[in-house]
């Protein structure tokens, strides 16, 4: 809310060329060197070094070998399945998560707190347990699976089953990302829209949705990232048929079991690159959205 234009320092003409990288202006608050040091050390140990080790491994195959692994038909199919279904699941979770977050923040009803706690369950449950539970229900002899089978729909052991599992694990990310922001949306802003003649529909789409869009996008990107890497809950329900219902993380495990470490690492690096690119796109969109109105 602070008028930032006032605080923007006056820059002499000579120094006006924007630099891409620069140290932040030293702050009065102490701890910058220590804070940065710990951040770099921690990120190196936990994220960068393991990923670097992963990235080095496939080169023993050489560039052409690496490329051959990645362009293998089975790998390509697994990639398409993993990333395609992850995006679809995250996209489905966007409206559904929004609806759930809306109900939980906007309405008071008996059992609201219990429902609220239920949302976190996919976070807390060991993924294998979730996978077995989902499989029990959606298998051809399970209650929902049998029902769907009557209509000729195969739920478990098909891409649909994988999709269900990915929706399941992604949901809390979307709900939890939106909830606090939705709570913060000013009642007065909505009332202003109403007095100006906006219908409920216009109020939701022109006023509330833009306000929570950055949070929604962040939730969707988290759900997507989680879905890409998901293994435990998917392997039980997927059926794991090569070329059909075999996800990329499973392919890595299979390669490891065949002592093809370099091949497994190559698939891993491929996933890493695609995920990284996707997250950059998500983040850029989010920054663009968030910058609007906050500049």
């Amino acid at each position, binding site marked *: 809310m602070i008028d930032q234009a006032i605080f923007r320092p006056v820059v002499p003409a000579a120094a006006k060329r924007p630099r891409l990288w620069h140290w932040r202006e030293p702050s009065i608050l102490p701890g910058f060197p220590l804070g940065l040091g710990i951040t770099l050390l921690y990120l190196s140990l936990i994220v960068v070094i393991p990923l670097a080790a992963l990235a080095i491994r496939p080169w023993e195959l050489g560039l052409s070998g690496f490329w051959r692994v990645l362009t293998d038909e089975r790998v390509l199919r697994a990639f398409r399945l993993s990333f395609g279904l992850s995006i679809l699941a995250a996209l489905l979770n966007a409206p559904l998560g929004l609806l759930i977050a809306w109900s939980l923040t906007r309405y008071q009803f008996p059992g609201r707190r219990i429902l609220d706690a239920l949302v976190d369950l996919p976070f807390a449950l060991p993924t294998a347990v979730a996978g077995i539970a989902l499989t029990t229900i959606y298998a051809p002899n399970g209650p929902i699976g049998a029902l769907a089978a009557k209509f000729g729909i195969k739920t478990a052991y098909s891409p649909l089953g994988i999709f269900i599992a990915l929706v399941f694990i992604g949901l809390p990310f979307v709900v939890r990302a939106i909830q606090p922001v939705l709570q913060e949306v000013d009642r007065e802003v909505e009332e202003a829209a109403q007095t100006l003649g906006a219908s409920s529909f216009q109020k939701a789409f*022109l006023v509330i949705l833009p306000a929570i869009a950055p949070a929604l996008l962040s939730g969707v990107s988290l759900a997507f990232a989680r879905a890409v890497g998901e293994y435990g809950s998917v392997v039980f329900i997927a059926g794991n048929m090569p070329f059909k219902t075999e996800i990329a993380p499973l392919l890595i495990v299979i390669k490891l079991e065949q002592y093809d470490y370099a091949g497994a690492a190559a698939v891993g690096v491929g996933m890493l690159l695609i995920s990284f690119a996707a997250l950059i796109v998500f983040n850029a969109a989010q920054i663009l959205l968030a910058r609007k109105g906050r500049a």
Partner: protein
Amino acid sequence: MDLSLEISGISKSYGRYPALNNVSLQAHDKEFLALLGPSGSGKTTLLRVLAGLEKPDAGEVRFGGEDFLSVPVRQRQVGMVFQHYALFRHMTVAQNIAFGLTVRPRSERPSKSEIADRVADLLSLVQLDDMGKRYPAQLSGGQRQRVALARALAIEPKMLLLDEPFGALDAQVRRELRRWLRELHDRAGVTTVFVTHDQEEALDLADRVAIMRDGQLIQLGAPNEVYENPADPFVYDFLGAACRMPGKVEGGRLTVADWVTKAPKGAPEGPVEVFFRPDEVAFAPADGAGLGAEVKAVAQRGPDVRIECVIEGEVFELEAHGPTLPAGVAPGLSLRVKPMRPRVYPRTTVA
């Protein structure tokens, strides 16, 4: 002038807490009406009832002869301005102002160029001509509130409702905007209801002031009228600084401590509360008429002088305009203080 707004018998309670208790008042067409009261007096609730954001439990609101309560919010065509601006922060200033026009059904919506013209007119009306492309976050508080006002005016409202619009602004900006708002109202010619807890603002701005307390309308009248003739001790106290002393009225004579004077017209007989404004007093030598007082301290504040006096063992802070103060008033001096326009209320009323 014809009546445009008629509020009758409005009551509203939240659970067991009554926010509005049988409030009735009328406003003329194009009148500027201020709802004045301390927080919790129900003034904002009444405004929200007018806007349609709150449903009263009982009562009736007619506007231009039409039953207003049965009209849904979005069709009331009231321009509402909120204390914290309530701007759409993801929209530019121009988009904010245009909002009320762009959400209209296609058949009633002005064309794009008509909307742009209207926005430009409103921007210059609120003196923000070059700010159309900015976002609310890039504006100061006073500018934001002017955008909110332009946005409310864009729908050509039948009534303008302002809920403490200057409450979040600093004193300087407040005073500027106050004058400006009054001019704007006179030019736009819209019935305006303005909620405030600042008596100076209400008295300065409004055609008539409605003073509220505990969900009830206590007094309604022109600023001068209510200031000169407060209905009860609460209103007297609320409208300005007040000194109060116990007294007695007997046979048309008012006795306060050692001062006996003619009782004001219509004063009740018996024990009374005597009120006077600290700046409506005359000073006389110790052998003259008035309340016996001893000066404790004298402090000059610009053109005004604050004189701390002890009267009947109690400390009163009186005010005098420098040039009219008799020379020689200094700490330790005994003199007489004569309230020029004492107001008398029966002692049973507790404010």
